[in-house]
């Protein structure tokens, strides 16, 4: 069996040049920005400087509240779970439906303050080898708590976009080991990354490896 190769990553954040001052411009922006931008505002933000414990889990919802002061729209955008969609275009369609609905319901187009525009961003991922190889799940469990946030992002978040089976790298690597690690795979697969920070995902993974591997040994 091939060893698990730990990779790490850094993001280059790029302004798309598209911004919105009001909800109609936001709708237009959503329609035309590269789909990478939608991805960035859901997932790339996990590696960005931000204050922890945010009120909303994606940048669109956060702007609907902080920029437009539209709590109803913010709630509807926040509840969208990106993992429920086959691809990013489908996710974009869902967001557009929500915004269109809101525009239909509104008597006027909600505006943000001049200095509270929404800026559509995208990112380029730079992936590099962390120089760490592990041969067994036990070894992987031991090094998990020390993995960087970049490594967690690459193997747990980015993997779902990168791999055919839309799975994280840990489950993919454990798969050929068969039934013995099935329980661990199932628990990892149940982690909802959308409602976690990278630190929290790392903590959960480390705990699952510890508990499940103890059970396997027993």
């Amino acid at each position, binding site marked *: 069996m091939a060893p698990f190769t730990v990779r790490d990553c850094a*993001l280059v954040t*790029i*302004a798309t040049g598209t911004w919105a001052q009001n909800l109609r411009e936001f709708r237009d922006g959503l329609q035309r920005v590269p789909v990478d931008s939608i991805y960035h505002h859901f997932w790339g933000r996990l590696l960005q400087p931000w*204050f922890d414990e945010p009120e909303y889990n994606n940048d669109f919802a956060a702007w609907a509240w902080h920029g437009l002061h539209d709590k109803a729209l913010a709630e509807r955008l926040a509840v969208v779970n990106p993992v429920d969609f086959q691809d990013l275009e489908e996710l974009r369609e869902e967001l557009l439906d929500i915004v269109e609905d809101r525009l239909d319901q509104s008597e006027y187009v909600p505006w943000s303050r001049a200095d509270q525009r929404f800026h559509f961003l995208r990112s*380029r991922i730079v992936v590099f080898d962390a*120089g760490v190889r592990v041969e067994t799940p036990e070894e992987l469990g031991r090094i998990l708590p020390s993995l960087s946030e970049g490594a967690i992002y690459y193997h747990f978040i980015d993997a779902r976009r990168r791999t055919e089976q839309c799975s994280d790298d840990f489950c993919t690597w454990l798969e050929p080991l068969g039934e013995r690690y099935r329980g661990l795979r199932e628990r990892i697969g149940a982690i909802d990354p959308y409602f976690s920070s990278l630190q929290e995902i790392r903590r959960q993974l480390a705990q699952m490896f510890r508990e499940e591997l103890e059970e396997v040994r027993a």
Partner: protein
Amino acid sequence: MSDLLERYAEVAGRDAVEHLRQLAHPLEGVRVVHVNSTREGGGVAEILHKLIPLMQALGIDARWEVIEGTDEFFRCTKNFHNALQGAHVHVPDSLLEEYRQVNERNAGLLGELLEDAEIVFIHDPQPAALIEHLPGRRGKWIWRCHIDVSHPYRPVWKFLRPIVSRYDASIFHLPEFAQPLPHEQVLIPPSIDPLSEKNMDLPEEEVAQVFERFGLDPGKPMILQVSRFDRFKDPLGVIEASRIARKFVPHQLVLAGGSAADDPEGEAVLEEVRKAAEWDDDVHVLVLPSNAHRTINALQRAAHVVLQKSLREGFGLTVTEAMWKGKPVIGGDTGGIRLQVIDHFTGFRVTTPEGAALRIRYLLYRDDKRREMGERARRIVRENFLITRHVRDHLALMLSLMRGTGDRLEVGPAA
């Protein structure tokens, strides 16, 4: 690992430094030149003093060059600076001509080095026009803008835009600062150096000494603003805020700063500030030399609350410095201050002297809140605004410019 990297590993974490080493491996030996207009004074010079040795320690052939200017040139670029931040400043043709000529002369002096470099970082508008005079350049050129150009005075931006458009990429602190340009606009917030004299831990006695040294009252709470004497930093607004707040809570205000070599307007603002403070024993105006880093460090640590009541701000590294020392910050609701000062969590954002006064009063009255916010502020800086993160972003950008433009780039294993 070099001694320098080892020292950073001790403060920022071994993982963060190992991360840099791996990312820098494919860039070993790459010739990189940074160019700006002053070796001392101002945030840009401070960042470069740290960034260059770190890049060198990571194996990159990094150099820092400073262009030589004339008084007229610096008057012109000071006008650019103000105009890019929104002031309606007419820049006469004679000054624009001087700007071009100074850049042309410096292109002659630095030509060979810059044309040969694989990556060139040009900081701010002063040396931006070098690119016009170096048609034989082979590397990637990046314009690093440290200024908030979200609402530039159009005639000045119209002059600079065609120059800046020639670059392969530009870097802004925040998306709000970016302007439409025909190349990629990358977002990289600046950072502070935890090992520098300005940010390192100091003995308590050294912190306490600032009271005697500057004639301050050790029995009275101190609030502090550290910045150049510049209208955009609103020092007069800070004096007013302190006077309003002093009706409720006794304290002393320290305005500490100096004039950078490329800031001829600073003297005039300093005079206005001195005049406003001359009859007030609780306002202390300290003009410090540009290398008084340790003194500023001690003042920030001695302060109860730090202000940065800027009307316009690029990023506000003095905010980051104060937060690193566990101080809540009362900051202007502008620019990069918004990214750092989270209302009610790491400080307060204000727009008027009255707003600042209210928050001064609150923070001096509520010791518990002041401490709680200060602790959070330090954590935010540790996680997001130390120089190791800044270097990482530069390395990622350099790789991305040299290796490709897709949305994914994979680089080889570290040795």
